[in-house]
């Protein structure tokens, strides 16, 4: 469980993240959603101490992360970058093995884990001895994901992990990602500016603007019970697809609400 309390980050005069608080339950997927420049990346990087906050506290499983060695903390948190950040001088196998090796796993175990991740992410085994430049963008992103998952960290931070891919590749990587069993048990914070993606992947969404959280809640809460005009306007363009995607035909309450909403809109 991750608990963020009143976290603030200023760069000189500029406040990138402004008194933000939220919690992520164990096994939950939380999406930080917002336009470019609203402070999502800054917020995410404070969770594994790539950026130190100006004020506020963060707890993981009840422990204040600022009481721990940053290196120790980071080895237990997987991190996926938009542009992979793979080591160009390491083979795919070596890239995936980075954290397990830092943790001192034995060779056999690392080998076994690497091979199994390659399989799960639908990467051919012969790629293990390739270098990142030899792979396509989609394949590199899968390796980036494998590398973040290698040491089986309980927490996963993902910064626009599908953002750099073309739509077709994105759909296929995302599909494999969603089918990964081992993600089910992980606590995930995912950053995106793509509303569709937020709805697809997030159990809960924090909508951010200008370094602050405007509204946090389940996708349908944001859609049907917006607390501010900003929230309503944010989803307006894609409202129809979004509503279709969140409505569970057995959830009568929501169904009626959606129906009302359509009726009002028609007037």
């Amino acid at each position: 469980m991750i608990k963020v309390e009143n976290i603030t980050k200023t760069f000189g005069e500029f406040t990138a993240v402004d008194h933000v608080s939220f919690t992520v339950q164990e096994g939950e997927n939380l999406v930080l959603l917002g336009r470019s420049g609203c402070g999502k990346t800054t917020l995410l990087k404070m969770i594994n101490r790539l950026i130190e906050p100006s004020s506020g506290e963060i707890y993981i499983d009840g422990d204040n992360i600022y009481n721990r060695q940053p290196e120790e903390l980071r080895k237990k948190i997987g991190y996926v970058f938009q542009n992979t950040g793979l080591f160009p001088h390491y083979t795919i196998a070596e890239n995936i093995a980075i954290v397990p090796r830092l943790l001192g796993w034995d060779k056999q175990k690392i080998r076994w884990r690497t091979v199994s991740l390659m399989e799960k992410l639908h990467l051919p085994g012969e790629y293990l001895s390739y270098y990142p430049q030899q792979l396509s963008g989609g394949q590199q992103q899968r390796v980036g994901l494998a590398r973040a998952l290698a040491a089986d960290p309980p927490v996963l931070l993902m910064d626009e992990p599908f953002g750099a891919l073309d739509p077709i590749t994105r759909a296929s990587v995302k599909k494999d990602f969603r089918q990964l069993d081992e993600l089910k048990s992980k606590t995930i914070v995912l950053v995106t500016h793509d509303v569709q993606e937020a709805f697809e992947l997030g159990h809960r969404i924090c909508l951010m603007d200008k370094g602050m959280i405007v509204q946090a809640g389940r996708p349908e809460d944001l859609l049907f019970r917006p607390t501010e005009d900003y929230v309503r306007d944010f989803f307006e363009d894609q409202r129809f697809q979004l509503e279709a995607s969140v409505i569970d035909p057995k959830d009568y309450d929501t169904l009626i609400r959606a129906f009302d909403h359509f009726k009002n809109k028609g007037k």
Partner: protein
Amino acid sequence: MEQAQSLWQFMQQQSDKLLQQTLQHIGLTFISLVIALLIGLPLGIYITRHKPAAGPVLGFAGVMQTIPSIALLGFMIPLLGIGPLPAIAALFLYALLPIIRNTYTGIEGVDPLVKEAAVAMGMTRMQVLLKVELALAFPVIMAGIRTATVINVGVGTLAAYIAAGGLGEFIFGGIALNNTNMILAGAIPAALLAILLDFLLSLVQKMGRRRRLSTLWAMPVLFLLLSSFYVLPFGYSTRLLAGFTPEFMGRSDGDIGLRTVYGLKIRTVVISDAVMYKAAYEKKLDVISGYSTDGRLKTYDLVVLEDDKKIFPPYYAAPVVRKEVLERYSELGPVLNKLAGRIDDSVMTELNYKVEHLNQSPEKCARDFLVQQGLYREPAPVKEGVVRIGSKIFPEQYILTNMYAMLIRGYTGLQVETKTGLGGTKICFEALQHDRIDMYPEYTGTALLAILQPPAVDTKAG
């Protein structure tokens, strides 16, 4: 073909010296390279962490690189004396820039995202440095090491000027002695050494990461081993230390004569005449091969030994003039002869002393002397025709050149061009032969031995 043959013979004859000089050269190159690495690598890394220091550090190393090598060696002598220490210090300063700069740019060139990813995965600062930054900067850093090595092999030849040995002994000895084989016996191994080392290091540079991990430890070991070549013992019995110019070393009226005729076997280092006198004065050397007319004999209160076995032919300054020029300007010969018999050793020493110690300009000194001798005349009306006078690089030659120029201008009206800056006997003589200059002051002994080159046995008679 004959040239190649005799060069080979020369190298075989002198194989002992050649081996010693080559080993010394390798040693000098690597001692300074190792020190430059020990200091340059950490400094290069440091300035990637402390950016404000990068400008001054790179600037300092850059300035060091622009100081002409001879000048840098000159600066070293008051601080470190002569011998290997100042040579190593100078080479170290030259090697510093490529190593610091390439370490810095290599690390700066690493994709920041890759560095961030390394941190994000829990690597410590040291792990990020070793496994990511240095690993990715490796080819660039190796390029810097290659540059530094080639520079060191090249500049290392100058070590011979300050008694630090190396292949420069042959090169500068050969230039001074007009001995092409000797020059090549030093220059060819030096060039081959530079090419070979550069090639070997290029192999390391291109090595893949895995090969590197398994072989890289060998590099420091090898570098240290090569450094140790410099101190390989070459035994001598006496404690007396002589410093001779490269020219003196190879002449039968020099070191060879001292060994064969006088049976003098003392430890000898090769040194440039520019620093030789001072080194003797500062007790760095016990015996030197001075010019009997050099003003510094007086300045530093040095004693001149008598050549009672007569290995030295008489050394009188005399103009060497192209025949063609003497014929074209018939008035030139008599004018130049006006100086004949007027300058003996003590007069010359006095003149040199004025220039070297009292800092008079060679021009004033020459003029004063001509006036005192009643020879001076204001320039005559200008006439068609130019005489080009060359000189070697030391004060006595400048004084003589000025005297000749004044006499020619005063008595003939011919114009005079002076080219004062020809490194040594060989360069002056080659310039004369190839019609670049018309005349230069030479010494009878040198003209006899170095230029006319009689067979070695004949010299005793001279």
